[in-house]
């Protein structure tokens, strides 16, 4: 076979013989193989621990983002009722970014679950192989003379070496995917650090970074829509507004007061009885 299978077989054989060349006599080959298998099992366990850590971290980020979404939504409502459309828009833009990130994180957590399952399968597979090999190596040692044993042992060790290389490959692929997910999780952390999901009332001017502005561009129609909806709800006297925070000055605009669309309208408090 000259194609993919041929190339792959050559690579695997080279790896396996490199692994087995390190030991010389039959007993040593067996013990060396066994020792390598146990090491491989430790690596798989470490891989599982890494995936679990990455998953927990993503879940923590999810919690933080969910809180941000709720907070930004509340702030947007407050800003609308205070007639501060610019502030409401900023809050909604951030909420939009946070929601997009949240969806991404959700997918990543699912992917990590899959990787964890793959690694756990690898671990069980490897453990079964190691147990089978441990039993077999004692049988081989007991049954054969040195000359015969050499042949039997190299056959068994080749098969086991191949299995080890394969579990190693499965593990490497799972870990590589985990690394990618960690990198994406880091990207979310950076957005958080850049203040993307922060309290809008704490925002000074000119704090936007380029990433956020680009995301805002793509989220604009959604923001417009949501802003219009919020204004509609307020006009209908519907919305459950949470206790107002420090939006604008010290406004606690009532829902009945139709919010002015003017960008820098005064806080609506002077309309209050």
């Amino acid at each position, binding site marked *: *076979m*000259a*194609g*993919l*299978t*041929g*190339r*792959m*077989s050559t*690579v*695997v054989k080279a*790896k*396996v013989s*490199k692994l087995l060349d390190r030991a010389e006599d039959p007993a040593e080959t067996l013990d060396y193989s066994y020792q390598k298998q146990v090491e491989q099992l430790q690596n798989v366990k470490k891989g599982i621990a890494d995936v679990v850590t990455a998953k927990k971290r993503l879940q923590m980020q999810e919690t933080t983002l969910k809180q941000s979404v709720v907070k930004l939504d509340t702030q947007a409502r407050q800003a609308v009722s205070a007639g501060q459309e610019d502030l409401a828009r900023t809050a909604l833009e951030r909420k939009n970014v946070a929601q997009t990130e949240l969806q991404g994180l959700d997918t990543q957590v699912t992917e990590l679950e899959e990787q964890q399952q793959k690694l756990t399968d690898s671990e069980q*597979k490897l453990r*079964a*192989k190691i147990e*089978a*090999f441990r039993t*077999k190596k004692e049988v081989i040692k007991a049954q054969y003379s040195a000359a015969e044993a050499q042949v039997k042992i190299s*056959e*068994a060790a*080749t*098969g*086991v*070496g*191949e*299995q080890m*290389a*394969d579990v*190693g*490959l*499965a*593990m*490497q*692929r799972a870990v590589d995917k985990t690394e990618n997910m960690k990198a994406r999780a880091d990207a979310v952390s950076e957005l958080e650090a850049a203040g993307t999901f922060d309290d809008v009332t704490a925002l000074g001017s000119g704090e936007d970074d380029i990433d956020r502005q680009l995301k805002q561009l793509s989220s604009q129609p959604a923001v417009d829509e949501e802003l219009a909806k919020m204004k509609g709800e307020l006009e209908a006297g519907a919305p459950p507004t949470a206790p107002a925070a420090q939006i604008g000055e010290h406004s606690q605009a009532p829902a009945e007061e139709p919010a002015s669309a003017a960008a820098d309208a005064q806080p609506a408090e002077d309309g209050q009885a």
Partner: protein
Amino acid sequence: MIVRVSTEGQYELGDDLRGRLNELDDACQVAVEAGDDPRFKGCYGQLLELIRGEGKELGDDDLRGSDLTLPPPDITLEEAQSEFSGHGLIPD
């Protein structure tokens, strides 16, 4: 003939399937060289189906080495083009 699907397991196949495997393998190779992803996915999928369908899966206590090794089922075209010809795919 024993065939390993990397990251999946080993299958025992009749030698009469060798010709069919060879054809599909060559077709995959051509698709990889042409950088044709849909065609590569298609014929690699057929190759895997043939092995899983016609082969008998080997148990954990079977310590025989494989005659052939196939790349992992989720291999990408990019990996097929570059990595596993060298030293990328199988770790030391």
